[in-house]
């Protein structure tokens, strides 16, 4: 009865139409039908009669593409360093998009595009957010009360400079702190505050240490904390161990190399306390107990020894394992044990070929710049007798013997109850790792935020050394960095007060008080730390007194750039009280009102990532140096200024005021300069204290007017950093990035077509490592290490006090770079909008807590309130929380660090020994993950 439903379809040529509309992109605005009469649509699945309206979205695209574009990277404490293109429409930033134009270094390695992440993708929104600082503000209420007076730049700079000069007069240069936190790590924008501080001799602390990012275990073994490979090397690995790192969250632009490496045949194993976003793609996840990593690492080392998986020839030459150690005092056998005037930096093997003692080449005191053994075949095992300087017999053995003996205490079976890992699992991954041709062990920043991260990493280094994984065969990877020489004249024209990060914060905040209360069970603490709480506190003082670590007196005036100190410091409430108490002038230079700016006396509004010129290239994850070149028509946001301009204006005021007060110069006896002058024939050298020349401050700061603004700084850097050659400023500005040259590598060349690996010079050219032994070092007889029985890699139990049931740990978040972008509503919308903690279903049930409940997290030092997220991926007895929420995001404005104790790792207080001397390569960590808590419904 029915007719079949045949369909016709009229077609129109869209391509032609598009070509036209492409040219004349006229807007319909918000389209309401312009059609004269009803449109008859036949079958929209096949064709559509009128598509003019489509210009609606075309016009929106045109707007976001903007009237001008620039280049940018996001200069925060993220090592991503990604090139973006930023568009601005009539002076207002619209959006950003990854530049995605990095060249592929080799046809068989995936290119690095499109580097970037969720945070970078919304800065065009965040830069206009309501927490943005637009004008200079002066406190009109109590500190932290949130009451402000809007003042002019001139008033702000004048009043601040008056107070600075007061301080210089009363306290000298040591009374002033000019410190730039990790909020700015780029060479461009960091230069201003560094230069001003250097000229004035101000105090600044070591940021990497203050935030707990020092890989001290790597320094013990290799002499430098930042070692490893560029992350494209992941693609070439056969075996990748990711330990305490969560690259899918924290290395977003680089993570693809892992999963492409996996497709390329690599086996990937993650070791972490929770089933994290990286583990979901791994071949295996090892669910370790938080803080038990040193046990796990040592158990792997024990398997290598026990099953003979080590590479003898490699360790004979490249490590100190064949070095001789005195059995009487457990110290390395040194030349001065055997010769009255002998060196304490010459060490010895037992040579199996000549069956006699032989000095090791390549140690610091050896005077020989090579590790080549020649005819020597160093013994790895055995006990020997040598004759001491007074003819006495000294019984010695090898580091190898002692390290093996120590490791035998930590077999997988023996430590299973501590790590929670089945011995079969440990043995399997150890065998696989050892036998793999190219096996990498990447260590995350969380490891050293445990008290024994230093031991964990040292043992990890030994695992790599024993199995011969170094340089292009893989090995330990912490956070590779490039060597950017030539910056000194810009950032450090004069010596200044550079001090330990973690220790200075600990002292300033009197954090020992929180340490005392949280670890009040001294028996328990001693058993785990090897020292009592009071011993550690004394050790800290001793470290300062003996100048193992540098710490100056407390400054009276703090000029803080881009450092959220009241957010990141532990036992935060406590710390804040102490520091504000002893600070007469507190100036915070910032682009947003963070939890530290809000306590300042003056807040100065700075530019953010797209608004000024900048350049960054030290990050070793990839070889690209990025520029920020603001879009030509981008309007300033409020009255913000670049850091360089702010410092330049300050130097102006300071010079005027000093002149007016008749103090052209201030003597700074803390530092001296030695000038050699010829008096007639003979040369006389004269040592005088450094002078702080207030009368020429402006010309000194601007290099006699050569470097006037942030653009000049970028130009200066491109012209003066050898690793940037042969790039010209103009080319860089046109491309938005520079490719580093061969000289960017520290211990290996950076080859144009290969991923970078540390220590090729050591492995192939046999040049010494930057350690006392000139080798990968696994014996340290510094007094603290002797006292704690840690002369060789060992393991210790985490310090979480048993009086609270939940180990509290705070890994890096996906939703901020620390506190940067943490309060962006775009980011908050992608989480739960407010601080939340992950608790396992079992622990939640016990406490009657349901997902979404408001809960109180507490211990003896503080408490905070957050939302419960019942999460099956965290283990019982732990509480996990994304780190770096702003304290002012919590009820009562008490942040998560108010429940974290300020504890120190005693081993990181050591110094004054071999390659353990305070500086960029040796400083400790502020410990973040050794506190325990209880939770209850709030």
């Amino acid at each position, binding site marked *: 009865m029915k007719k079949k439903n045949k*369909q016709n379809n009229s077609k129109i040529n869209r391509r032609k139409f598009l070509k036209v509309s492409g040219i004349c992109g006229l807007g319909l605005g918000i389209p309401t039908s312009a059609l004269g*009469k*009803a449109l008859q649509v*036949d*079958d929209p699945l096949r064709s559509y009669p009128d598509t003019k309206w489509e210009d609606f979205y075309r016009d929106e695209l045109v707007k976001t593409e903007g009237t001008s574009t620039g280049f940018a990277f996001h200069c925060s404490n993220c090592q991503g360093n990604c090139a973006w293109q930023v568009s601005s429409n009539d002076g207002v930033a619209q959006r950003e998009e990854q530049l995605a134009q990095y060249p592929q270094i080799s046809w068989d390695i995936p290119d690095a595009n499109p580097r970037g992440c969720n945070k970078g993708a919304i800065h065009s929104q965040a830069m206009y957010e309501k927490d943005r600082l637009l004008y200079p503000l002066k406190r009109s209420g109590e500190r932290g009360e949130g009451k402000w007076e809007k003042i002019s730049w001139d008033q702000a700079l004048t009043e601040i400079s008056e107070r600075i000069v007061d301080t210089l007069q009363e306290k000298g240069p040591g009374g002033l702190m000019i410190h730039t936190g990790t909020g700015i790590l780029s060479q461009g924008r960091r230069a201003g505050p560094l230069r001003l501080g250097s000229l004035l001799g101000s105090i600044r602390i070591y940021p990497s240490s203050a935030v707990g990012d020092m890989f001290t275990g790597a320094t013990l073994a290799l002499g430098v904390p930042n070692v490893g490979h560029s992350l494209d090397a992941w693609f070439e690995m056969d075996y990748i161990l990711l330990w305490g790192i969560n690259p899918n969250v924290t290395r977003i632009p680089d993570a693809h190399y892992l999963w492409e490496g996996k497709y390329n045949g690599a086996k990937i194993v993650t070791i972490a306390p929770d089933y994290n976003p990286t583990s979901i793609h791994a071949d295996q996840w090892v669910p370790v107990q938080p803080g038990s990593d040193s046990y796990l690492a040592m158990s792997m080392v024990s398997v290598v020894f026990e099953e003979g998986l080590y590479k003898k020839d490699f360790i004979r030459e490249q490590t100190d394992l064949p070095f001789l150690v005195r059995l009487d005092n457990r110290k390395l056998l040194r030349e001065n044990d055997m010769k009255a005037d002998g060196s304490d930096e010459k060490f010895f093997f037992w040579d199996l070929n000549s069956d006699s003692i032989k000095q090791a080449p390549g140690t610091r005191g050896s005077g020989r710049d090579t590790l080549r053994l020649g005819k020597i075949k160093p013994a790895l095992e055995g006990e020997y007798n040598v004759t001491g300087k007074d003819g006495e017999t000294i019984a010695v053995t090898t580091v190898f013997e002692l390290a093996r003996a120590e490791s035998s205490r930590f077999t997988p079976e023996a430590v299973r109850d501590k790590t929670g890992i089945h011995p079969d699992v440990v043995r399997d991954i150890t065998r696989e790792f050892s036998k793999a041709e190219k096996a990498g062990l990447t260590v995350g920043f969380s490891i050293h935020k445990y008290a024994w991260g230093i031991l964990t990493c040292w043992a990890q280094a030994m695992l790599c050394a024993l199995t011969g994984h170094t340089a292009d065969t893989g090995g330990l990877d912490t956070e590779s960095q490039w060597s950017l020489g030539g910056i000194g004249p810009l950032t450090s024209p004069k010596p200044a007060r550079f001090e330990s990060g973690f220790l200075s914060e600990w002292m300033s905040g009197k954090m020992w008080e929180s340490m005392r209360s949280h670890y009040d069970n001294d028996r328990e603490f001693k058993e785990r730390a090897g020292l009592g709480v009071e011993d550690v506190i004394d050790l800290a003082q001793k470290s300062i007194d003996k100048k193992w670590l540098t710490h100056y007196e407390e400054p009276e005036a703090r000029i803080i750039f881009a450092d959220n100190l009241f957010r990141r410091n532990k036992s935060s409430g406590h710390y804040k009280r102490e520091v504000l108490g002893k600070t007469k002038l507190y100036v915070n230079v910032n682009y947003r009102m963070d939890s530290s700016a809000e306590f300042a006396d003056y807040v100065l509004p700075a530019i953010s990532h797209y608004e000024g010129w900048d350049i960054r290239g030290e990050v070793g994850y990839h070889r690209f140096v990025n520029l920020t070149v603001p879009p030509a028509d981008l309007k300033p946001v409020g009255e913000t200024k670049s850091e360089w301009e702010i410092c330049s204006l300050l130097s102006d005021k300071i010079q005027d005021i000093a002149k007016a007060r008749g103090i052209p110069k201030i003597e700074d006896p803390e530092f001296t300069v030695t000038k050699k002058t010829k008096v007639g024939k003979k040369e006389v050298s004269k040592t005088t204290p450094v002078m702080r020349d207030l009368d020429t401050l402006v010309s000194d700061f601007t290099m006699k007017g050569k470097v006037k603004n942030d653009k000049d700084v970028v130009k200066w850097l491109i012209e003066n950093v050898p690793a940037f050659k042969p790039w010209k400023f103009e080319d860089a500005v046109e491309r938005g990035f520079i490719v580093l040259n061969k000289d960017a590598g520290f211990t290996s060349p950076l080859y144009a077509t290969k991923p970078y690996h540390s220590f090729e010079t050591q492995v192939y050219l046999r040049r010494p490592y930057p350690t006392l032994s000139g080798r990968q070092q696994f014996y340290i007889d510094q007094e603290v290490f002797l006292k704690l029985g840690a002369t060789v890699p060992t393991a210790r139990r985490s310090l979480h006090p048993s009086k609270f049931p939940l180990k509290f740990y705070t890994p890096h978040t996906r939703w901020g770079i620390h506190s940067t972008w943490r309060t962006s509503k775009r980011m908050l919308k992608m989480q739960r909008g407010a601080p939340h903690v992950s608790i396992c279903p079992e622990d939640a049930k016990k406490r009657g807590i349901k997902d979404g409940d408001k809960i109180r997290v507490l211990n003896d030092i503080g408490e905070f309130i957050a939302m419960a997220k019942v999460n099956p991926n965290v283990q019982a007895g732990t509480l996990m929380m994304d780190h770096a929420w702003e304290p002012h995001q919590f009820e009562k404005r008490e942040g998560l660090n108010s429940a974290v104790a300020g504890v120190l790792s005693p081993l990181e207080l050591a110094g004054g020994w071999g390659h353990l001397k305070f500086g960029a390569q040796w400083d400790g960590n502020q410990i973040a993950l050794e506190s325990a808590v209880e939770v209850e419904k709030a």
Partner: protein
Amino acid sequence: MMMTRAFGYIYAITTALLFTAQLASVAGADPLDEPGKSGELIVASMTNGAAPESPDDPAWSGAGFANIELYPQISVQPASAPGKSEVKIKAVYSAGELAIYAEWKDDQPSLKHDIGKFPDSFAIEFPFSFGAGKRLPYIGMGDPGQPVAVILWKAGDKVETLEAEGFGSLTPMALDGVKAKGVWRDGVWRVTITLKLAGLAGLAGLAGKDGGSKFSIDPANSGLLPVAFAVWRGDKQERDGKKSLSSWKFLRFTGAAPDPEYIKSLAWAPEGKGDAKKGKALMISAGCADCHTYPGSKEKPTDGPNLTFAGGIHRPQYLLDSMLRPSLVIVPKSEYYTIEEGKKESIMPDPYFTKKDAVNIVEYLRTLR
């Protein structure tokens, strides 16, 4: 070829038949007060003042209500839930303007157009073109070549003026001087829509149809204006085709002389009375239930329009046409026709009813309301 010839043949006959039918009805009663029918006619009285612009305007007190039956739109999907209702209409006109007052029950006012929320609405529908010898547009949104004008009021007093030529073809149409005011009180919506008579006349021009509109700027010479109404209840998720609608009604301007020809053309007075019983039986034997759903049909097919309220929303002449000349009055929904050499053809089988049978069926269908 076959088909076209057959069609042409039948067309010839039916037109002839219809013609005689109309002649026969000259003496027939006023089609607008068919026995047992109320609410076919809305009488618009003339006011010397300005036409009212609000439901509370005293000018309304004089005017009398026409109770208009509303039926759920179920001829096509998306259909609204079954259930009859009523809207009470008054009309008043001045020299320049026509005002229409509508009142209907709604215990739950919905004011917003938002995510999953729809505003209560009321619409008046006019044909662009009508008059003696002109078929009225399909009641639901008109049909191709037979456009309708729609004045749509939405809660919050947003008013849209639109035109349509079948389902889904609603398109904004410029028409100035339209005012609307709605008041919800005690479970009742009271709405007044006021529009310029000149504007209405203009409709013809807009549509570009020949002959233009029978109601002219001067109501004195314009007797009878076809009009239909629809109501949407937002809280029942009503929007679009989910609505209650009336059949074509007629607005008569007092003191105006309706064109007698037009009245005749609207007559329903076929030769001999139809027999609803026979009609029902015929529908069963003809297998109408294979495609159409109507009371008593076991299956609920959707191949043809649902006839459950056919008598309520269609005039008898339309129903007759749809049987005798299906392709002339296709329900404008692509499922209901095919296209043969560019011409739409209803999937309704070619007619094989005699006119007598068809009349009987119409009589039955008229009871479906």
